[in-house]
């Protein structure tokens, strides 16, 4: 059967999300491997940097436009996208594994009679079959699998797949005004959290654990994060103790993250924590206890006092950045 690929792209408040380029690049690569057509779809109002998408794809990008689509509505989004899939007979549909993607993809899977898999970190064409890899048990193991269904929906973890500018890209953006939206479930407002950056989206994360001794010492973590342009993370122990909010929790029952650099401060490395961050590209551990399990997976470690080392590290980073 002739495949046809659709990349579902995401914007927030009129700005394309970085993961959209990753989704589009993967879709473009798969369309070459499968020698098939590929399109992108995005919903929103005005999207300021939308023409950036043209660099990544050979194919059409359809922008369904309505001022009310600027913010997410599960009911409206799922209807528009699934109608588009059904009308144009897409067979492979790629979403980002973001808060929006993971909410939307399963609704669309049912509406389009597709099988679905989420949070894929690898997709390859092997013997004419798409073979997917996904972490399970919070990353303590991985499964390789096939999706045996004419139509496949899957989501990809952000920060894993490369956004590759395609020299031969010649896509065009086609705007389609839509009306009569189904707003039976809709977002009415957005509350930004106080922290600057979210651990799920950050390139660098500085995390603190029980070794920080108390919530009053987390300013050290925040200052280092600030110097690095990083997000603040936390271990489950300090979240359960009420020192830090749950949105910062990294690990099983928190967020699974794969940043470029993860700096663990005063974190011993419980199995649940390691599961959530061990796929980070580089890991730095700062901990007094040289036998802490975190050192088993760290690329670089300092087995010393966090209260001396973190401020010194912050100073050193500021020095090189200035």
């Amino acid at each position: 059967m002739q495949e046809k690929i659709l990349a579902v792209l995401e914007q927030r408040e009129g700005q394309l999300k970085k993961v959209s380029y990753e989704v589009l690049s993967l879709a473009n690569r798969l369309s070459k491997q499968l020698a098939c057509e590929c399109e992108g779809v995005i919903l929103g109002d005005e999207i300021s940097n939308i023409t950036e998408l043209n660099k990544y794809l050979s194919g059409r990008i359809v922008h369904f436009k309505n001022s009310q689509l600027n913010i997410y509505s599960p009911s409206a989004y799922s209807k528009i996208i699934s109608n588009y899939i059904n009308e144009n007979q897409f067979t492979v549909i790629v979403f980002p594994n973001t808060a929006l993607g993971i909410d939307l993809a399963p609704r669309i899977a049912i509406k389009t009679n597709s099988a679905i898999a989420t949070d894929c970190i690898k997709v390859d064409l092997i013997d004419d079959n798409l073979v997917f890899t996904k972490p399970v048990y919070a990353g303590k193991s991985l499964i390789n699998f096939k999706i045996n269904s004419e139509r496949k929906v899957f989501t990809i973890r952000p920060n894993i797949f490369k956004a590759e500018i395609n020299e031969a890209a010649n896509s065009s953006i086609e705007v389609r005004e839509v009306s009569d939206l189904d707003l039976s479930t809709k977002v009415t407002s957005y509350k930004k959290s106080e922290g600057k950056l979210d651990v799920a989206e950050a390139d660098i994360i500085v995390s603190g654990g029980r070794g920080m001794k108390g919530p009053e010492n987390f300013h050290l973590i925040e200052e280092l994060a600030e110097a690095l342009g990083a997000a603040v993370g936390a271990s489950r122990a300090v979240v359960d103790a009420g020192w830090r909010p749950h949105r910062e929790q990294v690990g099983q029952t928190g967020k699974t993250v794969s940043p470029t650099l993860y700096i663990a401060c005063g974190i011993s490395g419980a199995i649940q924590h390691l599961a959530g961050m061990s796929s980070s590209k580089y890991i730095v551990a700062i901990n007094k206890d040289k036998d802490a399990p975190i050192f088993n997976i760290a690329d670089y470690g300092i087995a010393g006092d966090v209260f001396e080392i973190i401020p010194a590290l912050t100073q050193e980073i500021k020095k090189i950045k200035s």
Partner: protein
Amino acid sequence: MKIAVCVSHVPDTATKIKISQDRKAIDQTGVTFIINPYDEFAIEEALKTKEKLGGDSSTCSITVGDDSAKETIRKALAIGIDEAVLLKTDKNPDSINIAKALAEEIKSLDSKIVFFGKQSVDYDSGIVGQLTAELLGYNCISVVVDLKIEGNKVIAEREIEGGREVVESELPIVITTQKGLNEPRYPTLKGIMAAKKKNITEKEIHFEQTSIEIIEMNLPPSKQPGRIVGTDVSAVPELVRLLREEAKVI
């Protein structure tokens, strides 16, 4: 009204994973199973909703699994759930098959408010609640950290990257719960005794062929321990040099 809560039976998060001999699943030998941690928030919210609605409202848990899941179901009953359904299978169904079985049971219970944990900590798919809602034609709000149900109206806050979305919808609804929504209560001794007398309805279920075909389960590539750069502040410049020149990450 019956408030439904879907509960999974999963390996304890402290479990060290070993792969089974056929390399398609985990080796369950010696593994302790628990209530899926996110389902504890779903159970608590179901109980709170029942308390608020009062009258003849009651709570019913639904679990897909084999006989061993009864242990987890008893825990849910001990926490305060009124009755339970076990949809029995020895197979390892995929998310859509699980959702189909749950949707059918929810329909027969005629529940208009359904709670799920936002994901099970085994396969970590995070979609069964949304799939079930879609199959039922119910509204759905996922990853909820704050919830108000007034009559038919539902206002929830869901966690997203860097903040929260306030979402409005109506009954019938599926809510998937995230840590932070509530403080789950523990079973009391009285609850544990009462649970022994509560009813678990068992139903055999049969699945169509699963669409997800597992080729192989593997452990992640093990990371080589790196180096300890030093034991005090004198190591900081060297650490920064390594991050800049060797790792090239800052």
